[in-house]
């Protein structure tokens, strides 16, 4: 474990006092390995360690900790701070018929998360309206409709061959008519490098003016997380992230990578296949997990 690695580095340190640069540098080598093994992006690791080194060098070692524990504490605190700390991670649902739009790569968990979000909001007194805006994937509409009926939430039924922007527009009108709020818009999975499909998202956003545009990302994502997050952020503008499949054993370094490159808060964690498996994102637990 990381703590054992670092204890070895500091064993030569006699007594306490301040953390010396050479010791910190040596300790951070172990931290670097841990972060890379956890799938944190290479460049993000570099930046992160620079910031930690600046904080750690010259710091007074606390009486209750060993120097190694002190460094880990600084790393951990910095991870938590970076990933949103005690940040406000609420959903913005202001306005008459607010729209929450879910976007992301293929298979990341958008459709399932849309239903989970609906159940979450229903439990908090909201009357959500689910909208399947994926005309490409076979049975995508059916999938969301089945999930919707499982949780007793109304779901929009797109007309045959209806364009995505038309679906969103008509669905929002319907939600307004039925006084349903918020509208949860599920979109088709797509690559951040697919210009036509990214353009579709831009048009969709222009049509419904969502209060939230959430990137649904798989917690198992590797180094590619930064390209994906950046791609969606630059093309579309995101308000937050939902990290899915955290019930597995992926270390989840993608969480740090994504937050570091786009600066938007990770609002929720998907922690299972069932529709009640959605929690607010806890930076402290993912920090421990990343450090391994």
């Amino acid at each position, binding site marked *: 474990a990381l703590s054992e690695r670092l204890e070895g580095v500091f064993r030569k340190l006699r007594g306490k006092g301040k953390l010396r640069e050479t010791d910190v540098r040596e300790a951070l080598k172990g931290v670097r390995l841990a972060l890379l*093994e956890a799938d944190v992006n290479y460049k993000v690791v570099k930046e992160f360690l620079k910031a930690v080194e600046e904080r750690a060098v010259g710091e007074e070692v606390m009486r209750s900790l060993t120097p190694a524990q002190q460094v880990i504490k600084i790393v951990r605190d910095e991870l938590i701070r970076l990933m949103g700390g005690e940040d406000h991670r609420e959903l913005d649902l202001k306005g008459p018929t607010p729209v929450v739009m879910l976007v992301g790569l*293929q*298979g990341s968990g958008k459709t399932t998360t849309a239903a989970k979000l609906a159940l979450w909001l229903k439990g908090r007194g909201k009357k959500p309206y689910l909208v399947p805006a994926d005309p490409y994937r076979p049975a995508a509409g059916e*999938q969301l409709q089945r999930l919707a009926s499982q949780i007793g939430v109304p779901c929009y039924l797109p007309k045959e061959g209806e364009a995505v922007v038309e679906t969103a527009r008509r669905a929002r009108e319907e939600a307004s008519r039925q006084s349903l709020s918020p509208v949860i818009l599920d979109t088709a999975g797509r690559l951040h490098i697919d210009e036509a499909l990214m353009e579709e998202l831009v048009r969709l956003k222009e049509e419904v003016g969502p209060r939230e545009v959430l990137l649904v990302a798989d917690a198992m*994502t590797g*180094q590619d997380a930064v390209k994906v997050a950046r791609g969606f952020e630059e093309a579309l503008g995101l308000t937050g992230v939902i990290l899915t499949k955290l019930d597995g*054993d992926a*270390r989840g370094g993608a969480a740090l990578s994504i937050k570091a490159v786009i600066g938007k808060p990770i609002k929720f964690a998907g922690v299972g296949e069932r529709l009640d498996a959605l929690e607010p994102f806890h930076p402290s637990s993912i920090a421990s997990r990343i450090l391994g």
Partner: protein
Amino acid sequence: LLRPGKAIEEGLWEELEELLIEADVGVAATQRLLEVLKEEARRRDLKGAEDLYPLLKGEILRTLKPCEAPFRLQKERPTVVFVVGVNGVGKTTTIAKIAHRYTSQGRRVMVAAADTFRAAAIDQLQIWSQRAGAQMVRHREGADPSAVAYDALQAASARGYDLLLIDTAGRLHTKGDLMEELKKTKRVLKKLKEEAPHEVLLVLDATNGQNALVQAKTFHQALEVTGIALVKLDGTAKGGILVAIAEELKIPLRFLGVGEGLEDLEDFEAEAFVEALFS
């Protein structure tokens, strides 16, 4: 990066490390590769960066080439392929692509809708099956997946189908009871036909990082994986994790998925894959 005229020095090693790690090759495999390269560079007294490129390629090929083994139908009918993997990787779509490849060759293909759990999974496979010209066997939603697989094998054998592709529900390898369910389905198939399944095909998502290696190890331990399909390589992820998987598990690398359409399936080729790693 390794262009002519560039000198081999400390900065270059760091750049190479960055390239490999960012391709998801992983820390351990990257360190091993760079050690070999540094040793060779020392031994041969290499000066130019361009001399490193064939060395690096060669070293990765040494690991990947032995795992280059395209999928082939067996002589006896049907060839049974049991498709497994974690949630959302691309199992159902990959089955559609494989089915399409073989129906296009005039083969008779059957698919089994053994994902009886996820919403609209059967509907999704039904549409793909129709598009690919395959026959589908299904039960109702919530039925026992092993029963679906069993029925499908029975039907495929009786009616002389060439290929049977069995779709399963996605599941995280950490869920013991769900892994047990897969083992049970495999046993049920074996009971009906000793050699079945001829292939246990693990589908991996190229956008995953180091967890793909853990998935491969766990599925392999539970089911004895005989083939790997790495998909979503049409994105920006490089799938470098295959190097570690090939090195540690030596499982045949069958297919690459390069898109969402029926035609977007390629056979794994070591040279092309290594070229793409550096592009």
